[in-house]
């Protein structure tokens, strides 16, 4: 299944963009209200939102200021139906003439068999109905066959 890729060109050096993901006082300026971060492989990546919902995962890989990988999910999936630690986010910071090109890739959202058993997707999937009922799908990003998408992404790399 296709990963989610979001990109931005930011007028800030890679060191600052990278620190946005590793320093609690910087993380809370764009993601959440409180943060508990231990930026070493295996260390905690956790932040809370105003409604007390918390996102939790672990840092997997850190190569400052270029590349960072952490697992991601919600402790209670009321807002976004992805369980804690079940999916993986990769952040890549490439220097540009004006600052940094940031590329964020979120993979593992298909809730495959392994994730279902290891991370409790089942508990979260049962809540999907209520969560999804207010969401507009917009244009179908999965209209393409998932295997074609994977193949295309490989070629584009």
């Amino acid at each position, binding site marked *: 299944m296709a990963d989610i890729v979001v990109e931005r060109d930011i007028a800030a050096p890679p060191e600052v963009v990278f620190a946005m993901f590793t320093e609690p006082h910087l993380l809370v300026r764009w993601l959440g209200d409180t943060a508990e971060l231990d930026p070493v492989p295996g260390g905690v990546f956790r932040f809370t939102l105003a409604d007390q919902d918390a996102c939790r995962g672990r840092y997997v890989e850190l190569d400052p200021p270029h590349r960072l990988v952490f697992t991601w999910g919600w402790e209670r999936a009321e807002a976004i139906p992805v369980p804690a630690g079940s999916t993986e986010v990769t952040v890549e910071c490439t220097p540009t003439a004006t600052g940094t090109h940031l590329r964020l890739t979120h993979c593992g959202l298909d809730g495959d068999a392994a994730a279902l058993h290891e991370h409790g997707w089942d508990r979260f999937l049962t809540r999907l109905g209520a969560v999804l009922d207010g969401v507009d799908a917009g244009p179908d990003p999965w209209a393409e066959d*998932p295997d074609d998408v994977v193949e295309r992404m490989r070629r584009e790399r």
Partner: protein
Amino acid sequence: MLRLVWNSERTSTDLAEHTGMSRPSASQHLRILRDADLVAVRVDGNRRWYRADRDRLARVRALVAGFWDDRLDALQAAAEQETHRRG
């Protein structure tokens, strides 16, 4: 499992074989996916055919993509402010 029912309808026996899961755990997995409306079922005689509900799946993805899109706008503003502050 979702990938297997992406483009074609399959039975739970067929899915168990393809995933290497036992039949009971394949059935349980399918029930969960069905409860979440991620998989649709068609009954044909005494066989049940399963396929992915792509519209529903597209909405999960749209939800998460929308989340990151908003958050990265905020990250961009914060990183640029921080850069100014550091001079």
